């Protein structure tokens, strides 16, 4: 039975917020790779599809002690406990799933019927609903990537860690008689594009992959860890206030839990 299984992996990301410049290249790389549509007015961020969204965090202090930091937020591909991520278990039609092979939370657009329960379940707002039919100006649909399905209106979509790139890398590996791929063979579009080199992607469980060590950085943290979502995206920041901003703390907890 198990001979058909590929080795279990746990793909994840480590994003160095000290390096992240907030330029937004990752957002656009993602949109270009994944056929994310756009409307004439995208200023209402509440219905603007950005699988990877760069948030701006501020330290709340006044001039000249103010400080800010950008935080790119892809889908966290939460593992929860044993793969029961917040969104996966709630989907009534099994349109979203968690695979132990890759640790990726998948979303199947043709299965989804748009109940949006998963969006309610996700505390990261990583899931987006297609309120509108995706429309490209005439001629522009030429750049659409055939490796990623264009989403019809009325369904939920989200970051897939560019899973199609894993599929393609595996195809090449199979062709060459391999069953495993190298770290560099599968990288997400945002990782590849980031001009600051702030995003590192790989198998968190594989000691040969860079993320394996990076996630152990004393300055590493994850978003909303206290909820038990067990996300697979790690952040590194040398600034304490940034690390604090990654989770909720009661006042009496003295903001000292994470230094």
């Amino acid at each position, binding site marked *: 039975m198990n001979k*058909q*299984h590929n080795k279990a992996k746990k793909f994840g990301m480590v994003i160095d917020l000290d390096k992240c410049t907030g330029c937004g290249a990752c957002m656009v790389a993602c949109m270009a790779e994944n056929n994310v549509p756009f409307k004439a007015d995208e200023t209402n961020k509440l219905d603007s599809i950005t699988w990877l969204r760069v948030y701006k965090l501020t330290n709340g202090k006044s001039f000249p002690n103010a400080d800010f930091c950008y935080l790119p937020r892809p889908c966290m591909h939460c593992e929860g406990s044993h793969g029961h991520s917040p969104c*996966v278990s709630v989907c009534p039609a099994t349109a979203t*799933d968690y*695979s132990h092979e890759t640790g990726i939370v998948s979303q199947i657009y*043709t299965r989804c019927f748009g109940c949006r329960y998963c969006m309610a379940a996700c505390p990261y707002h990583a899931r987006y609903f297609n309120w509108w039919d995706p429309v490209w100006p005439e001629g522009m649909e030429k750049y659409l990537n055939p490796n990623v399905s264009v989403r019809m209106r009325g369904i939920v979509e989200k970051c897939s860690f560019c899973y199609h790139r894993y599929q393609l890398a595996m*195809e090449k590996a199979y062709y*060459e008689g391999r069953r495993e791929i190298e770290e560099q063979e599968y990288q997400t579009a945002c990782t590849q594009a980031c001009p600051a080199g702030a995003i590192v992607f790989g198998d968190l469980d594989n000691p040969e992959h860079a993320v394996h060590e990076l996630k152990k950085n004393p300055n590493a943290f994850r978003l909303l860890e206290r909820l038990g979502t067990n996300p697979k995206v790690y952040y590194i920041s040398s600034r304490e206030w940034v690390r604090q901003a990654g989770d909720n703390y009661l006042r009496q907890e003295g903001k000292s839990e994470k230094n």
Partner: protein
Amino acid sequence: MSKPVDHKKEVLGDGSGGFAILFFLLGLVASLIVGWVVYPKLLYSQKNQPVDFNHALHIDLVDEGCESCHFFREDGTYSGVPKLAQCIGCHEEVQGETKDEAIFVEQYVKQGREVPWLIYAKQPDCVFFSHVAHVKAGGMDCVTCHGHIGESASLKVYEENRITGYSRDIWGKNISGLKTNTWDRMKMDDCSECHEEKGVNATSVQTGKGACFVCHK
């Protein structure tokens, strides 16, 4: 009008029951005919391939079987239906005397136009089907899914579902959705049947079976 109650009894008691059964059967039979015969006829449009093709003839002329024309690219992707470039080697000039050959050479080869083949086994856009995973890694043969098309001398009529745009081969020729051979249908259930049997990447947390992203994009 004097005895309305009697009227009622008469009507309901005698003739009506028989009428009701008769019309019930009429309705039943009519709708069964509509559902089983008329509907499939209406549902599928019939399209002929632009040019006929003789698989049987070609398979004898090539060395590597199906893969001679339906080959893998170096990146592991599958080339699918051959492009003109592969045919030109032999068909620069008209070979043989068939009408289709003449059409092929005159209208396509000489004009450098690709033939708009209708693909029987075309999977929908949401499917990521990896031929290489099945053929190279899984060691499967073509017949399992495609049947004996390689031995055919002529291309069958392409039937297209008017609602979905799918080739009829996806649902299968049998409108009831029943199948006898592995290649009779190409629905998701048919894929998962084999995947379940073989336990292919049964890594889904939700179903314990194959995870969605194994075959979808």
